[in-house]
């Protein structure tokens, strides 16, 4: 993947999430646009690129958010690395499969975030169904739309990887 595109996305996605994601909120729940972008970058660029993107975006999300520095950082690195590992084996899987896999990833992120809130405040498990589940579903839909829009680029990438393996 072109590093300049990745760096640009890393820097722009958090401000966009903070200022624009509210416009597409459903019942007060915004999709996790940075998470969707990291998953996509991991899928196309591999686990190292995904993990690196997750590190920068997660750090920015933690710094500009109301929580401690760490929870989003860890979650986003995880999404990037797992997205990258999935990309090695399932790059050409259909969008529904990717939707399902990303749903699981974002649900895990939700459980992790709920656990960190519980650890700090001693409550908050209600957030599992009030925030984690709706956010994961919404973000998985965004991932599916994004991958469907990028299907040609994904095909080209898979072709290049196949050629490399053949050599």
């Amino acid at each position, binding site marked *: *993947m*072109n*590093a*300049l595109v990745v760096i640009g996305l890393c*820097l*722009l996605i*958090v*401000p*966009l*999430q*903070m*200022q*624009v994601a*509210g*416009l597409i909120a459903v019942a007060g*729940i*915004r999709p*996790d646009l*940075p998470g969707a972008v990291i998953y996509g970058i991991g899928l196309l*660029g*591999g686990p*190292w*690129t995904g993990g*690196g993107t997750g*590190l*920068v975006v997660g*750090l*920015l*999300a933690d*710094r*500009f*958010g*109301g*929580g*401690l*520095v*760490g929870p*989003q*950082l860890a979650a986003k690195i995880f999404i990037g690395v797992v997205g990258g590992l999935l990309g090695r084996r399932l790059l050409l899987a259909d969008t529904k499969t990717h939707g399902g896999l990303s749903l699981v990833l974002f649900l895990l992120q939700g459980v992790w*975030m709920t656990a960190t*809130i519980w650890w*700090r*405040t001693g*409550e*908050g498990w*209600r*957030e599992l169904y*009030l*925030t984690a589940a709706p*956010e994961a579903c919404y973000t998985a839909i965004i991932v599916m739309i994004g991958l469907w829009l990028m299907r040609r680029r994904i095909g080209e990438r898979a072709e290049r990887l196949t050629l490399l393996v053949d050599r």
Partner: protein
Amino acid sequence: MRWSWLTRTRGLAVLVGVAFLLVLFSPQIQRRPSLIIEQPLLLIESWLQRALGGLGAVAEHVTDRYVALWDLDEENRQLRDEAARLRQEVTRLQEQLGAAGRRDALEAFGRELTGQAVVADVIGRDPTNWYQSVLINRGQRDGLRVDMGVAVRDGVIGRVIKVMPKTAVVLLLSDRNSVVPGMIQRARDEGLIEGAGGGQLRMKYVSTLAEVQIGDVIITSGLAGTFPKAMRIGTVSAIERMPDAISQQLTLTPAVNLDRLEEVLVLPLMEHDPEGER
């Protein structure tokens, strides 16, 4: 430009990554970014945040006003475009006038309250659904410090928790991690106000002897040094008394609509005053 160099130096990258994470989790870094590589990154990001500050409003305007006009015929379209343009001009001028008025009122309120308050614009919401915070366009360079109180004319909204060179993060009262000491205005009993999720607040540790009623006004007690005394926090909307408990718990409705914040006032830290008479 490719990333293949990274895969060649995996071991080193993992070591550097682990060291970076360890440094990042240290308590001092939690409060203020001080890593050499983090400062320029946050500076660029703050600049981007400020530059994109109006993007949300522009996008909202576009979706509200123009998408609905697509299916009209050409003649009507021209006339309506002209009318829309004029309406937009009026809206823009009204908005400018309103913003200037609100800002002037807030500045006057700040002068009345304390001499060194800073007026700031809200330029972003929390990047996740997990916390209730806003980003403001004032930071360390404007004299902002962690724990400063933030308010509007109607009441308090939260406190500064992270300060960057040109921006700062304000934790809203409705966040679960927010704690503010407060007082029932009529009964004069004190308690701690926490965020309860769903935009509600909760007042804990209120004595069972306190005579509280639905609709009672809750104000700041002035004890923590973040807010002056007697700023409005909210009103009591529910009372929970457990049998045999030594305290009662109140549910509050915030005095300020925390979902619609535009300009806010950052208050200077108060000197500790045992009487709380500020």
